């Protein structure tokens, strides 16, 4: 039988189901547990936490999750790859090593610590040497926001993950390593793929993309025949069984809920997709138009035929910067004429904001139950709707107008249209907006400073 490497998804984002990693480890054979925590905005949230507490800045969920499974992964020889380190991978590694010691497993855990993605302290140097770090979407130069930057991280690929595994790490903790690199790394390490074998690199990247959002490829958020998806209360997270030639099976543990089929895998493949012929990662480029899917038994889909192209000379950089303030408030209006009442309340509110001379970059009104998600495509409002939620958001560069807005909602209860309720939550909170600035940087600036350390308890 051909040798396969099993990589199981344990988390698809920070906030995902806490039981999933435990079930992946206990529910059947796996070789690797892949724990993805970082979305585009997560790094800035973590940076904010670290600025208040130097020991923070990583996905804290990861440590108790590891504590629950450490005995099992040691006993079974399962290895873990995770970008839970956020902007403080060393703090995260230390916390995991502490947990291992508490469990008496100190001698059995070797943490591979990957750093060097954090380039916040190097930005001025990079700018001074002509790297413009323009916004990939708008083309604006970084100098526009230089004084407001909160975090800056280059997306690293699978290479440091492979290096950590080669060094004997059984838990690899990284900062901003790509979601796909956490799956590709184990495959390259175990199957002996060359880093310039572009088809295999592309195949491992697609495997990573399929499982990086957890159960979203195994029945969660599945639109096709959603009523027929059974057992989501104990949904099985996806597992990739990869072979040396780059083909792989997507599956889940027996006895778990959800479903792995052509529909579930295809929906995940098109998720957050740009140009399908050119899915660019630090490790190479995958051509999604070459993917061949085929059913391979109950809850098994085979994936093959994937072609790739060489990696580019650039790495993506994720920069978070202070943008301004926002607040969102809601009130609920009841039948009859719920929508009309909510609409009148919105008019009154806006007139009061204008009378106060408040200036906003944006005021956005949605009527939940009528048009909040589909806008005018939802058609004319239903005059008989049992209730409609008025949802108003404001955004400004200054805090003061947003603060004042949060005090203008409650008065509507006694000074606006009738049949209003749902204000028990109190005033809306003013939120600081930390926005995302994607850019590119020459990989030669980053790769020499990436560090891999092996830490033992």
């Amino acid at each position: 039988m051909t040798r396969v490497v099993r990589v199981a998804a344990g988390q698809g984002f920070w906030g995902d189901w806490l039981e999933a990693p435990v079930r992946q480890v206990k529910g059947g054979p796996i070789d690797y547990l892949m724990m993805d925590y970082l979305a585009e905005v997560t790094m800035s949230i973590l940076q904010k936490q670290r600025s208040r507490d130097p020991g923070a800045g990583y996905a804290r969920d990861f440590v108790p999750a590891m504590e629950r499974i450490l005995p099992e992964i040691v006993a079974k020889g399962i290895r873990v790859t995770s970008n839970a380190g956020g902007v403080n991978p060393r703090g995260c590694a230390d916390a995991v090593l502490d947990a291992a010691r508490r469990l008496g497993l100190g001698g059995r855990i070797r943490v591979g610590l990957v750093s060097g993605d954090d380039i916040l302290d190097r930005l001025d140097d990079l700018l001074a040497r002509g790297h413009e770090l323009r916004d990939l979407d708008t083309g604006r130069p970084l100098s526009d926001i230089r004084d407001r930057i909160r975090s800056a991280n280059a997306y690293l690929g699978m290479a440091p993950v492979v290096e950590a595994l080669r060094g004997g790490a059984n838990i690899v903790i990284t900062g901003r390593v790509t979601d796909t690199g956490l799956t590709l790394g184990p495959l390259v390490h175990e199957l002996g793929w060359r880093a310039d074998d572009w088809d295999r690199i592309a195949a491992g990247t697609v495997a990573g993309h399929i499982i990086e959002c957890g159960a979203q490829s195994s029945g969660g958020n599945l639109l096709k025949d959603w009523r027929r998806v059974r057992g989501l209360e104990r949904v099985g997270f996806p597992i990739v069984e990869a072979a040396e030639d780059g083909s792989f099976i997507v599956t889940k543990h027996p006895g778990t809920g959800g479903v792995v089929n052509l529909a579930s895998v295809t929906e995940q493949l098109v998720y957050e997709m740009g140009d399908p012929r050119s899915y660019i990662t630090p490790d190479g480029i995958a051509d999604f138009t070459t993917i061949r899917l085929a059913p391979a038994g109950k809850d098994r889909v085979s994936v093959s035929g994937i072609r790739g192209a060489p990696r580019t000379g650039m790495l993506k950089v994720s920069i978070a910067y202070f943008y301004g303030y926002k607040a969102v408030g809601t009130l609920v209006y009841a039948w009859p004429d719920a929508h009309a009442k909510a609409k009148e309340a919105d008019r009154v509110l806006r007139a009061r904001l204008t009378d106060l001379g408040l200036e906003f970059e944006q005021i956005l009104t949605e009527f939940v139950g009528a048009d909040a998600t589909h806008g005018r495509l939802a058609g004319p409002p239903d005059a008989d709707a049992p209730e409609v939620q008025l949802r108003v958001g404001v955004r400004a560069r200054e805090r003061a107008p947003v603060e004042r807005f949060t005090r203008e909602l409650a008065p509507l209860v006694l000074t606006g249209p009738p049949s209003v309720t749902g204000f028990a939550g109190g005033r809306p909170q003013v939120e600081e907006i930390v926005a995302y600035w994607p850019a590119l940087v020459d990989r030669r600036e980053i790769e020499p400073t990436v560090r891999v350390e092996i830490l033992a308890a």
Partner: protein
Amino acid sequence: MSREKPGGRRAKAGSGRAADRPVPVQLRWLAHARSGDKGNTANVGLIALEPELYPLLARAVTAARVARHFRGMVSRVERFELPNLRALNFLLHDALDGGGTISLKTDAQGKVYSTALLRLEIPVPPAVARRFRPRASRR
């Protein structure tokens, strides 16, 4: 409900008897979909429910048609084809009020633009309409 008129102007008239004339069917009966975001752009992957429906989708659900569907909600639409997955991928630019943390929208990350696209009606041959559109549904 889409505001496009049933039997709309896109239907190829003059193709013979009335019984052969294309019938408008909402995409929800012909495809499934998932959407996500990249900055201020939403993407919608539209996947044919059956392999034989893919050519129909590829012909009728053009970038221009989708741009008209979402007029006033997005600035520009790009389309990519994935015949291997029987899917089309649409990029809806400037769809998310700034996107990410800036957006004030309920759907700041474009998660349900997918089903908004499924409201679109396209003309299909009567036999296809009979097979895929539930009898109870008029649209």
